[in-house]
């Protein structure tokens, strides 16, 4: 065991980060005993640079940068097995969700996964529902390396009549309550996040 076990948070920023995650994911995160049941249960653990167990530790130590820069937070599939099994009734998945949420608010932090989440959230906010055509089209524009995969999938789904191939059809799904949707995101979400979603919108269209 070469890892430090100290819980001391060194910087005020680290302390603020730790408190923010605890507020989002639950105070019980502090009771983590580092048993590793979450990592052992995680379906994508083998692909992660930082195991979930260690991610929790980084949070408690206020290691903001190391936690947020980990690829692991984007490899979580939200399958909840960690949460089913945690002997301390912590919700490790909620810790990951909190990290994603904080990452998305941070200035200058962006990766293909956060771009995808941004497009997804903004479509809900603006239309009320997800159009897979618009979602794929926007993501393909913002992340061109995904084009081959999306096209191959499209070739499978379009002949089956499962994807509407027109903006009119896709937009036809817009619900009546879009004002309410906007209010949900603006009143309950983070303002910085919706501002960032706005930027994404401008950059896309």
């Amino acid at each position, binding site marked *: 065991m070469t890892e430090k076990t100290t819980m001391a948070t060194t910087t005020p920023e680290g302390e603020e980060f730790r408190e923010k995650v605890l507020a989002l994911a639950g105070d019980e995160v502090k009771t983590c005993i580092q048993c590793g049941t979450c990592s052992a249960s995680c379906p994508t653990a083998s692909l992660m640079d930082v195991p979930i167990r260690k991610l929790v530790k980084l949070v408690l130590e206020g290691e903001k940068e190391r936690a947020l820069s980990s690829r692991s937070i984007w490899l979580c599939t939200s399958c909840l097995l960690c949460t089913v099994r945690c002997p301390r009734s912590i919700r490790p998945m909620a810790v990951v969700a909190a990290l994603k949420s904080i990452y998305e608010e941070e200035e200058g932090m962006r990766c293909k*996964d956060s771009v995808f989440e941004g497009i997804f959230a903004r479509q809900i906010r603006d239309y009320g529902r997800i159009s897979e055509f618009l979602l794929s089209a926007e993501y393909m524009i913002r992340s061109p390396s995904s084009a081959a995969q999306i096209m191959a999938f499209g070739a499978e789904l379009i002949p089956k*009549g499962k994807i509407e191939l027109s903006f009119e059809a896709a937009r036809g799904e817009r619900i009546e309550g879009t004002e309410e949707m906007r209010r949900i995101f603006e009143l*309950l979400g*983070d303002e910085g996040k919706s501002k960032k979603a706005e930027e994404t919108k401008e950059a896309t269209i």
Partner: protein
Amino acid sequence: MKLAYYPGCVARSTGREYEISTLAVCRALGVELEEIDDWNCCGATHVSNEIVSTALAARNLVRTELPVMASCSICYSRLRAAMIRLKDRKLRERVNEALEKKYEGEKEVEHVIETITGALNEAKDPEDIVVRPLAGLKAAPYYGCLLTRPGGGIDSPENPSILENLIRTLGAEPTDFRLKMKCCCGPIFMPEEEAAAETLIRILRNAKESGADFVVALCPLCHLMLDANQPLLEKKFGEKIELPILYVTQMTGLALGLGAEELGLEMNSVSTRPVLEKLAAAEGEEEEVC
């Protein structure tokens, strides 16, 4: 029985055959469905802010007085998680700040497998309903994650049996499918295709090794990953799988005597014909014996 129906976005695109077969099966079982007016996306696994995600679900739940039925496991899990969280008065008040119609009282949420199982259990003689038992067919019960997790709901989050029981009730045989609870990785598929592919091929190989004629899916994302994606996986890994993936409602519909067209069976990517042929052959044999 009357339920409010929450289709979810996928029902109108990649999961059309799930909606078609859900509506057909509910009609056949005498379950009346009333679609929730002006429903919105549940946020799936992509809205990381829990309060926003709870409010998205709450807006759907307040639009009806009836118990809500969803066929997508992700939608179901979001609606159910919100329903549980909203018991907290403080959170409820916060969420209500953004809602036009306020969330009050208790709501009920169920998954279509509960609706089907419930209707079959209530029937005096299930044999009157299961008019075309799926004799001779072996089905791999694929649960995926969100139907049973984080627990306290339908069935055990570690080793459930509701789907195996349904398969037996319908006259088929469930296979011993070791990876039945393994996550399909669908939620990260779009940005992290490579990561998902490795897991998916393992799930498909394991289902095939279990001797299944088809896999039963309960979630349109699992279905998309195993069905529409199957030809791409076959190409990527250079092997033939050719394993039909039926929605739970398609499987049920067949046993209720509904036709392939009524169940959208031609909309599946991997041909479902081998299942229909095997079923017809088994019935032919039975007639000969009689």
